[in-house]
């Protein structure tokens, strides 16, 4: 199953690249010119994102390095415990929406401590795989087009993350506990 999915995944990019270029060529598009014309915008777009991403990263870093995040985790630990989230996982669910690399390194630590195939290891993997770095996505996607009023977007993203955590705990308990 995984092997098949990985095959599809690795074939998809080369096949897509060839199809787009071939289709363009057959339709009479000057493919090389057209490609380079479009690619020029890549740099501008990436640079446009920088201020938004930087603002977000600085805030996240201050929040984490100061210990404010640990404090928040400690404060909310009874609540997350009541939701059935194991103590070892609680830091992960706060890290996950803020920092992709941060949550990955926390999971490495969990893997070392408990092993990747332990219940905690599997639950951490499921959480990491099924949710996204919400704050990063918001900064990058909206930053690229200069959106400043995010409306309810962050709230929806965080609610979806919470739903993902609870679903992960629920399904992992059914599949992997006992």
């Amino acid at each position, binding site marked *: 199953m995984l092997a098949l999915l990985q095959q599809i995944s690795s074939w998809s990019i080369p096949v897509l690249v060839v199809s787009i270029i071939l289709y363009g060529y057959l339709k009479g598009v000057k493919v090389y010119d057209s490609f380079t014309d479009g690619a020029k915008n890549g740099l501008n777009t990436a640079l446009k994102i920088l201020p938004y991403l930087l603002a977000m990263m600085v805030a996240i870093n201050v*929040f984490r390095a100061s210990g404010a995040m640990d404090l928040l985790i400690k404060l909310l630990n009874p609540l997350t415990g009541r939701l059935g989230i194991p103590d070892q996982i609680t830091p992960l669910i706060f890290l996950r929406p803020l920092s992709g690399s941060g949550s990955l390194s926390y999971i490495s630590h969990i893997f070392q401590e408990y092993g990747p195939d332990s219940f905690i290891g599997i639950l951490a993997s499921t959480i990491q795989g099924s949710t996204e770095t919400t704050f990063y996505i918001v900064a990058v996607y909206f930053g690229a087009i200069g959106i400043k*009023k995010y409306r309810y977007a962050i709230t929806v993203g965080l609610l979806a993350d919470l739903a993902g955590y609870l679903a992960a705990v629920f399904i992992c308990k059914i599949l992997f506990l006992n």
Partner: protein
Amino acid sequence: MVNLLWLGMILSGVITAAFTGRIDQVSQAIFEGTTTSVQIIISLIGPMALWMGLMNIASESGLIERLGRLIQPMIRFIFPDIPKDHPAAASIMMNLTANLLGLGNSATPLGIKAMQDLHDLNKDSERATYPMCTLLALNTSSLTLVPATIISLRVASGSGSPSLILLSTLFATSFSTLTALICDRTFRLFSQE
């Protein structure tokens, strides 16, 4: 709201640091944040340019339009505000497909392309529109069949069966995406365009 959130994170951080004595680390973290964001942007420029180039060929050849017409009836339910024959439909589909296949390098540039296409429909240029919020909800909830990054970390950590998590991840990610769509619809009801 984002103004308050941003201030809140920095202010609560600095105040906490005053009590925990970690002001040095905070000072260092500020500049690390700037470096990290530049590194992320640099790693984004390449894939961004690649997909912008390819999407330009696809657009000039009419492929985007054709794909959009094909896909529009399917995504009309989720994105009712996108007009027929608009290129946003095709770029949204490509973004979602890249997410499903776990192609992180491509999902972000294609998602940005989709946002730019949606931005063409935007009148108030600094305010997110309904379809923008929906696209963001889909991306933040991460609908994926191949959680590539975590599987490679599991392999690297010596897991006996790295793919053990496929089923549970699919369940959790479907549930979170469904929640994202329901919340998105609900918030939409209580907000004015």
